[in-house]
């Protein structure tokens, strides 16, 4: 059983949103609203409980003579967002029910039959991926098509993607592929091409990696996401101190002056 990942290459993405629809079709997710956003061609906004793949549209003013593949200027880039399936996943660590598990493929999977809707994972995700379904309160996100992967099928989004912007495969191979791709893009003059895979932070890398053009913040990708478990030590230390103070203070107060109130 190999450890798998997505590599989403925005220099190959044509912004068709097939991944969004294929995901919803496979997973039987309802549509989530018919609002026109005015944010370029993006009317679904962000990944959430009922959108597990989401295509972002980043516009800049184009110049005649330069298409989007020209190295000089990225003018309209698309990038399909998804749960990052962090190596050190906030939601997974936070889940109090064991509903969220790491699968044999390295993905982070919410078991819908176990999830009790506590919502703690929502606050624990540094990428704002996990969200609670308004109807039944349970948390939902990309399953990494665990059901499909179990029988050797590719995730629905990667399969549908017409231009293979969403690549799926063994994680180390994809990292190598991304490295070569980046070299190639730089060679072509796309100096702004970058690889997003936050291995340098406490998230320790993701199973959904991205090749983008320009600053990751443009795509709502945090430059250095942190898994919230890094705050535990400080928190529990403070908790212990608080307990000690409470115990000590109470003891002190009652020993010295407990009776005099009467």
């Amino acid at each position, binding site marked *: 059983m190999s450890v798998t990942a997505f590599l989403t290459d925005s220099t190959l993405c044509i912004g068709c949103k097939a991944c969004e629809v294929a995901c919803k079709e496979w997973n039987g997710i309802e549509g989530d609203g018919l609002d026109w956003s005015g944010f370029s061609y993006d009317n679904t906004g962000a990944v959430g409980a009922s959108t597990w793949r989401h295509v972002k549209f980043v516009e800049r003013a184009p110049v005649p003579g330069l298409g989007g593949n020209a190295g000089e200027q990225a003018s309209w880039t698309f990038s399909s967002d998804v749960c990052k399936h962090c190596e050190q996943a906030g939601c997974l660590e936070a889940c109090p029910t064991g509903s969220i598990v790491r699968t044999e493929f390295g993905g982070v999977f919410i078991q819908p039959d176990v999830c009790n809707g506590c919502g703690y994972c929502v606050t624990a995700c540094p990428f704002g991926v996990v969200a609670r379904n308004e109807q039944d309160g349970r948390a939902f996100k990309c399953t990494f098509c665990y059901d499909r992967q179990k029988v050797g099928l590719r995730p629905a989004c990667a399969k549908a993607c017409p231009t293979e912007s969403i690549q799926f495969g063994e994680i180390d191979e994809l990292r190598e592929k991304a490295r070569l791709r980046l070299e190639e893009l730089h060679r072509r003059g796309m100096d702004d091409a970058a690889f997003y895979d936050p291995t340098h932070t406490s998230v320790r890398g993701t199973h959904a990696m991205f090749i983008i053009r320009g600053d990751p913040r443009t795509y709502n990708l*945090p430059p250095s996401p942190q898994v919230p478990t890094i705050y535990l030590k400080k928190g529990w230390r403070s908790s212990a101190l608080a307990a000690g103070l409470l115990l000590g203070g109470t003891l002190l107060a009652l020993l010295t002056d407990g009776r005099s109130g009467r």
Partner: protein
Amino acid sequence: MSDPVPLGDLVPGLERERRLAEIRREAERRGKLDVVGGRPPGAPFPQATPETGYYKIPLLKEPPWKWEIPLYFFVGGAAGAAAVVGAIADYTGVDRKLVKHARWIAAAGSVISPVLLVADLGRPARFLAMLRVFKPQSPMSMGVWTLVGFSSGAAAAAFAGFLSDRYGPSLPLRWLENAGQAASLAFGLPFSNYTGVLIGATAIPVWNRNVGDLPLHFAASGLAAAVGMLELMGHGKNRALQALGLGAGIFESWEGLRIEGRSDPHLDPLKHGASGWTTRTGGVLSGPVPTILRLLSALGGKRRSASLRRWAAWSAIAGSLITRFAWIRAGHASARDWKLPLEIRSE
């Protein structure tokens, strides 16, 4: 070949050309048009840039909790602290009534807390799902197991105490009471403040920035509430409680000053907007108000003193309650921030 015929008025001069260039530059630079022309300026359009993030759509999702959870924070904090006060009071042999009342607060908390959680989750079975695993890395899992321990202990102690009062003491009852009390003390200590770790160890900036303070803050707040309740239950003259209330009030005042004094933009939700005002209200009611009232009560006459302490108690309870709601609201505001989670500096 015929010559193209110009279209009279419709042909613009160089000036208009320049103006168009100006408009485009402006639009590209700011994503917004303020150029004053013959017509009203308009047409800003949203942009995705390193400065605005992705159309200023917040990266993080807001915490999904409604009123049940901050209320639970409040109840748990008060109940945990009450259990501690009750147990210590018992061990120090100070005041049977204080012990009993403290136990009752703890016991009430141990019943109300799971009810609130179930209300938040929707179904009782969903609460049981929390007992599938034991995860030290999850404050919520730890909290649930603490709650289970605390509730069992506090309920057992109260129940055994009730039975001994009614039917007279017996060894098994005594044993149950002692064990329950010991458990409620042991679990009550973390139970009164673990919710600070719970929200502190999340991706919400305003929370995780304060993870080192929150448990202390919540413990003080819980203690203040417990003390206030006990005072209102007839222990208005207990000087130990007065001391504890004073200590909590001073700590809360200091906490408030600390927050106000730091200029970290991550703390903005605690200072600005609706969540800021809620925080300040809770802070004032928890810190300076009861502290001053308690100090005044020490100086004044007997009747006036009792009345001041009652006010201090009410203020502390209200402050404690509002504070928990304030922190949750601040968490919402912090999650809605499109800048900080993306490490975009505020202007």
